[in-house]
């Protein structure tokens, strides 16, 4: 169980380059699909680990911490306890993706001059 305030969806300080946001929006759904389709705890943990790395790299704190919790349960072999976390992770993933799309849209006018 995570204690304390919920981490920010996006790190407000970190500068995310548009090309990396687009790459995340392109690649990360495949990582989420691996997690939601996982048939055992090990696969769940491995998928969560992979998505966690991308999330930390881009400053997607809430997603990163949700992945970390899921990875911990997966590595502990606790598939039943991990399953409810998958639903939560998918919700955080959707919210994060929407926020990134908004950030990308906000960067577009400046980029196109």
């Amino acid at each position, binding site marked *: 169980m995570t204690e304390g305030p919920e981490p920010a969806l996006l*790190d407000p300080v*970190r*500068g995310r*380059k548009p*090309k*990396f946001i687009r*790459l*995340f929006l392109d*690649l*990360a759904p495949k990582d989420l699909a691996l997690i939601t389709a996982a048939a055992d705890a090990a696969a769940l943990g*491995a998928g969560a*680990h*992979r998505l*966690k*790395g*991308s999330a*930390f*790299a*881009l*400053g997607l704190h809430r997603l*990163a911490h949700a992945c970390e919790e899921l990875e911990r349960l997966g590595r502990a072999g606790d598939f039943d306890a991990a399953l409810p976390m998958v639903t939560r992770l998918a919700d955080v993933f959707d919210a994060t993706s929407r926020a990134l799309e908004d950030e990308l849209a906000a960067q577009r006018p400046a980029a196109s001059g």
Partner: protein
Amino acid sequence: MIGAVPDPVPDDANANLGAGRRVLVLDDNPLILEMAASQIQEAGFEVRTATTLAEFHVATTMWRPEIVLTDIRMPEMSGHDLCRTLKSAHSTAAIPVVLFSALPEDQLAQLAQECSADGYLRKRDGLEGLAATLHDLCESILW
């Protein structure tokens, strides 16, 4: 052994930090690879990337990297086992190896020590400071 750390350096100050040093980055996550390679390349390092052990071994043999940056948890082999393998072979023992992971720092530092890595870099804080940190590691380890 060297830890992670320094404050990010402004982009323009990074321009030739790498001085053309050859860095081989191994990670099974294409997003991380792309981000890391981009950051390092912009700082003047020469970069090759590998997502599999086969690609890594080809690059190590043919390209002779001056420093290796490797993820830890990968499907084919862990980064710390890879480090041990490199350090145990005469042909690769002299190549500095830096572990690169989203693990908490205490675990990362312990793993780096156990496998005789030359340093470690954290993914948890993002990759903005990667080039500056790598430069500092290079200065400490190599030159």
